[in-house]
């Protein structure tokens, strides 16, 4: 079964905080391959991380 965008957004976020399990990574990859919205979301999360690191520096 395909994960929903909601679940994928949660996994993308957790992927920034812990190492995801094999199944989680697989589900994520399969979903991202076909979902532009979540792919954009993932890029935005990576950008957010970069931006906050530079804050107030």
């Amino acid at each position, binding site marked *: 079964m395909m994960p929903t965008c909601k679940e994928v957004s949660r996994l993308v976020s957790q992927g920034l905080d812990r190492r995801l399990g094999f199944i989680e990574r697989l589900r994520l990859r399969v979903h991202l391959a076909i979902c532009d919205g979540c792919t954009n979301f993932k890029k935005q999360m990576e950008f957010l991380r970069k931006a906050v690191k530079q804050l*107030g520096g």
Partner: protein
Amino acid sequence: MSDFRTRVEGERPYLLRYASLQLRDRHTAEDVVQETLLAALAGEAAFAGRSNLRTWLTGILKHKIVDAIRRASREAPSAGGDLMEELFDESGHWRDMPSAWADPDAALEQKEFFAKLEECLARLPARTAQAFMLREHLGFETDEICKELGVTATHCWVLLYRARMALRLCLEQNWFGR
């Protein structure tokens, strides 16, 4: 040496802004900055030979901020989460599909962008913001953040997730677009 004192005092506005952003409480921010300046003046010898006063002071301040967060960590539980309902429908699809942000790296060159980012951070619930800043700005690992805030790992991930969702939405609405 009063010259050192003047230079340290000159960094107060910067430190205050930095602390206010992360603590979200003016009084606590003033307290930690005061502690930092006192510690700096007492430790002038430790600074000797280092190149950048601001960097050195910010390093001290970060420790004071973590201490303050630790002290405050038993307060208010986190606020509820209609945010997820706002973002996803019942079947878990985006209500509003994220579209690509135009040239986000260009934003990193702009002061106004960071001012907006700070505004967005200021809108987060205090605890959510603290967890997020510990993680993303101060670079703590999740298990350390859990310890500081006295929450479980799962709750910690939820706080970080909410922070990111809210910040993304805020930046999208106020900077990237629409």
